[in-house]
């Protein structure tokens, strides 16, 4: 296990508190927790790609960064329509 994989594991461990907030908080709190979890997961994918020495894996992180934004924005728009 190298430093990159350790970094990825530490970042993914940060998703657990986000899940706890999403479960226990309001829906707006859950949305904020989802945004932070998306960011952490994207960064973990970058660290995993470097940790496994596979440059092609970086494409997954690029796509996750873009689609994570779109997915979260869908939730924001959906909740705005409830106002």
């Amino acid at each position, binding site marked *: 296990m190298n430093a990159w994989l350790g970094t990825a594991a530490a*970042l993914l461990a940060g998703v657990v508190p986000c899940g706890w907030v999403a479960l226990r*908080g309001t829906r*707006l709190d859950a949305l904020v927790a989802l945004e932070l979890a998306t960011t952490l997961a994207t960064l973990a994918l970058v660290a995993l790609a*470097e940790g496994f020495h596979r440059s092609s894996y970086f494409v997954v992180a*690029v796509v996750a960064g873009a689609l994570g934004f779109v997915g979260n924005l869908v939730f924001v728009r959906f909740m705005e329509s409830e106002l």
Partner: protein
Amino acid sequence: MGAQDVAVDVLLVLSVACAAVCVLGLLAGRAAIDRLHYAGAATGVPPALIAAAVVVKERGSSAGINAVVVALLVLILGAALTHATARLARGRRE
């Protein structure tokens, strides 16, 4: 262990520390708008530090370029998403 490896390790530790502060802020925040500050901060500093670590390690390869692209994507799109979420939170408060 050369200076390059030390620099990479320092950048990685700093990025994890910044991400941990953001997660702790998410847990400690009282309202969603307070928590949003930490979620927004996580789109700025940790991606830049990880991209810097990859660039230091790979020195101009495609992996470094991809890491910088990811950091810029997360930074720019994250700022837009944080703004949209803040507008939603303000609308719910009014």
